[in-house]
Structures are given as structure tokens and as C-alpha cells.
């Protein structure tokens, strides 16, 4: 089976700093893949390159989505192709209400009725958002903002969702809730690429995982195998 999303020998530099040194990975349809690693390993850069938020530096055929190269396309075009990105640090629109944020998420869907239906589904998943639908997103707590960011990403019915550090800065109880939602989304068959600092949680959520170290893939495999891998345990799971 051809992968839905594939990176082939992908390099990225910020000026003179070579951040990604030829990483290769793939995500099959319906699969949840985690990308773990320490600070500065290049996880976020990988996601931002996929969703077109950072310029592609002249290379063409290293990011393949659904059989087509997408490198060099602008972010809005990539979103329109069905790749949704839940940003690190959430990035909701602070001066719009929850409902307006969700409507903005449905920007690509021209059929108003369809948008209303999907928003209703998001409210079902996160009842707390419904309670506060007229509240400005900037006044929500971190956990609620994360739920809004996830809900907003779901509105345009993406084929693959990129999650960037969904647990960042959240209380443990809220993290649990957020990951419960991610597991539900996974169970519904949406393909997921998950970047996460909390390696244990990521490995328990995903099917397969890649370990990123200094811009290179150090290890990859099934999550269950990685959880028992001595090297992984020592480097990423100790104390957690």
C-alpha cells in the first residue's frame, strides 16, 4: 500500500544551521505515527515543512502526499489538499469567539449547512466549547484552547492531522483529556502524525514511531517494541 504521506531524504536548514539532515519517514492511511525526540531535534520543523509554513528552499520531490509532491506549495493550498495542522502553542484567534474560530476553520467548505453540521459534531465531542461558544477564545484556559484548536482542525474534514505538542503547558489531567480526544479521532480512522515531548504518552497513543535525534532518524518501529527498547527507555522514558 502506498503511504499517504512520505518524506524522502528531507533536509532543512535555518541559515547556516543544518536542522534536518536527510530524514525519511512515511505515514500509511489510517495509521497514527508518532515523532519523538528531545528539544531541538527538529520535530516541529518537520511538521512545519510538511504543512508549508516554512519555505521549501528550492527542493521539490522530498515530501510526497497522496502520490504527489507538495513541497513549495503555500500553506493554504496544502490545507486545501486535506492536511490539517494543530499548531504548537495552539494559536487560536484570541479576539474571535469560539464559534467564530470554528467557522474560520470551515473556511474551505463553501456549503454553510455542512459547516454547521460539523461544528455541531465538534460541540458533541467537546461539550465545554458549546457552553462557551460566545466567549472570546483568548479568555479560555490552555486546555480549552487546545480543544478548540483540535476542533477547528477537524472542521475542514482533513485526511491527515499533524499534531504539534498537544500536551505543551497543560496540567496532567487536561493532557489526559486531550489524548483521549486524539485516540477517538484515531479510532474514527483519521490518519495522524503526532509530535510529542511526552514520549511515553506518544508511544502509548500511536501505532508506529520514529525517534528523531539531532536532525536524523535514530530509531523507528512499532510503539510496543520501542517502549521496551533499552535505549529508548534510558534516553526518553526515564523518570516518566
Amino acid at each position, binding site marked *: 500500500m502506498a503511504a499517504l504521506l512520505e518524506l524522502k531524504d528531507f533536509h532543512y536548514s535555518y541559515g547556516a544551521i543544518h536542522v534536518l539532515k536527510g530524514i525519511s519517514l512515511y505515514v500509511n492511511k489510517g495509521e497514527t505515527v508518532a515523532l519523538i525526540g528531545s528539544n531541538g531535534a527538529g520535530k516541529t520543523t518537520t511538521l512545519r515543512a510538511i504543512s508549508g509554513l516554512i519555505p521549501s528552499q528550492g527542493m521539490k520531490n522530498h515530501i510526497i502526499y497522496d502520490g504527489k509532491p507538495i513541497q513549495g506549495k*503555500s500553506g493554504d493550498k496544502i490545507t486545501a489538499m486535506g492536511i490539517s495542522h494543530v499548531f504548537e502553542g495552539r*494559536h*487560536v484567534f484570541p479576539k474571535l469567539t469560539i464559534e467564530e474560530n470554528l*467557522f474560520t476553520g470551515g473556511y474551505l467548505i463553501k456549503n454553510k449547512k455542512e459547516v454547521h453540521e460539523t461544528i455541531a459534531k465538534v460541540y458533541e465531542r467537546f461539550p465545554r466549547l458549546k457552553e462557551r461558544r460566545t466567549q472570546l477564545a483568548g479568555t479560555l484556559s490552555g486546555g480549552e484552547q487546545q480543544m478548540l484548536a483540535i476542533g477547528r482542525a477537524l472542521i475542514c474534514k482533513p485526511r491527515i492531522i499533524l499534531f504539534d505538542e498537544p500536551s505543551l503547558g497543560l496540567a496532567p489531567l487536561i493532557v489526559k483529556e486531550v489524548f483521549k480526544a486524539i485516540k477517538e479521532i484515531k479510532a474514527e480512522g483519521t490518519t495522524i502524525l503526532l509530535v510529542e515531548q511526552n514520549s511515553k504518552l506518544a508511544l502509548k497513543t500511536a501505532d508506529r514511531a520514529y525517534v528523531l535525534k539531532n536532525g536524523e532518524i535514530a530509531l523507528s518501529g512499532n510503539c510496543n517494541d520501542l517502549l521496551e527498547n533499552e535505549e529508548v527507555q534510558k534516553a526518553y522514558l526515564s523518570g516518566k
Partner: protein
Amino acid sequence: MNKTASIVTKDKLGLYAPLAVLILTVPLLLRNFSYGMMFLCFCEIYIIAANGLDVLYGYSGQISFATSAFFGIGSYGSLLIHNYTGLPILFTMIMASIISAAIAMIFAYPVSKLRFAFLSLATISFNYIIFQLVTRSPGGITGDFNGAFTDQMSLFGLSLKSYYSFYYFGLVCVILLVAVKNLLVKSRVGRAFLAIKQNHHAAEGMGIDVRKYKVLAFGIYGFYAAFAGAMYVHLVGYISPETVAQQQSVIFMIMILFGGVCSNWGPIVGAVGILLLQEVLGYAEQYQLLAYGILLLIFILFLPGGVVGAAKKLLTRLKNSKGGAVDHANS
């Protein structure tokens, strides 16, 4: 949602109905005071330009110190087309506005990459370019420093020379253009503007073509400013290059900061308020800029929402204290 909307309009009907009557009958009250009528005509013109700037700055978050340049493109554009071709004035006004919108969009295409400080520098330079073009025009077609004359407003052969008749023409223009703006900013286009203003990365992540909408906002702004400029030139029948000067652009910016951005009433209150202030300060001309500077500082520091924003805040606070139960329980 529709329910709440209809309740609000019923609530406000008591306020709007007398206001509408006042606006319609004001020329009768000012029958022997043509200076006052002229002032009201100027208010209409500046309200239109300020609304254009509100779309650009308030909604799409792009600052511009080139409003008087687009205002001038409208004035000189309509003047030149009318003087050289003799086409009907309303037609040349619209033509000049469309040309201005096109120029604004061409200007915005490269400039849309720039943010706040650099965008203001780019717009300031653009304003200087237009000023230079107007004062040193090829063949002196704009009358250079002397300014230029044209016909006063007429519609379908009907002369609207007097301030009284121009007032009603202006009123129709204001209502039309403010209504169009209102529809626009409440549509998905308006949401796209607001999303870009608040976080352009996230907006792109929603599938919004950021550059397209930034350019579109400039186009709308260019149209509104130029239409106001064209109204101006056919009200006065004359334009001087001073109207296009950089200083005037700053005044437009002060208008919407004073009135408040992102609202229907903000640009209206701002335009009328600043014009009134100009009347009051007319006798102390050398201190005008000082007064604007102080005013601008006060508004940026203490009243970022402008007069209208502050009034809205006060109203909700009053309502909350009346209603008692405020939803602070979980925040």
C-alpha cells in the same frame, strides 16, 4: 443566532428612529446656515474614507499612511476624466475609484509581505510618490501647485451644486457604502481578514490565501478612499495638492483610532469628531498637529478601542452590574 440579532435591532430601534429623522431633517434646521451644511457634506466624505481605512486597518490589520494618496487619485482621477472627456460625473467618480482600487492592489501585491512598521514606511513613500506626481505632473495636467478646477456635482443633468442637495446625495453614498462594508465584514471574507490580522500562520493553516485577502483589503480601501476623494472634488469644484499631502493621511489614521476600529460607528464618530476638532482648532493652526499628537498618544495608550470601544465597554459593564450574575464562575 438570528433570534438574538432581531432582539438587538428591536432594542436599538428606539435609538435609531429619532437619529434617522434627525439626519433627514437636519438641512431644514440649518436652512440659513450654509457653512454648517458644508461641514456635514465634508463629514459624509470623510466617513466614507474612514470606513475604507477601517476595512484595511481595523479588519485586515494592515496599517496605511497613504489614505490621502488614494483620496487624491480619486479626486484628480475623476477631475481629469471629466474635464477631458466630459463624461457624466457619477460615472467618472466610479471610474476613478475603480482605477484607484486597481492601483492599490498592484501596490499591495509586493507590499503585503511587510508588517506594521515597514508597511507604514512603504505607504508613506507611496504617498510621497503620488504627491510628487500631482505637483510635477507631465504637461502640468493637474495644475501642479496651483491645483485644478472642475465642474460641481450633477446627477442626470440635475445640478447638486448647493450643499443642501449634495448632502442628500452624500447620505445615499454613505448608507450604501457602509452597508456594503457591513455585509462584507460579516461574511467569510471578513472572518478571513480578522483571522489574518490575529495570526496569519494560523489563518494559512485554515486554508486562507493570506496574500489574496491582504491585496483584496487594499483594493476595497483604495476604492472607498478614492470615492470620497471624487466626492470632495465635485463638492468643492477645485482641488489643491495640499489635499494629497502626507499630513492628511495621518489625520485619517487618527480618525479611526479616535472613533474605534472594527465597528460601524467607530469611523463615523472618528471622522465627525476630528472634523469638529479641526473647526475648533482652526484658529490655532500651528498647534493643530500638537493637539493631534497628544490625542493619538492618549488613544493608543489608554483607549485602544477608541470612543466607540470605550462606550461599548461601559455599556456592558453597566448591563452586568444591573444583571448581577456575571459568568466569572469558571474563569
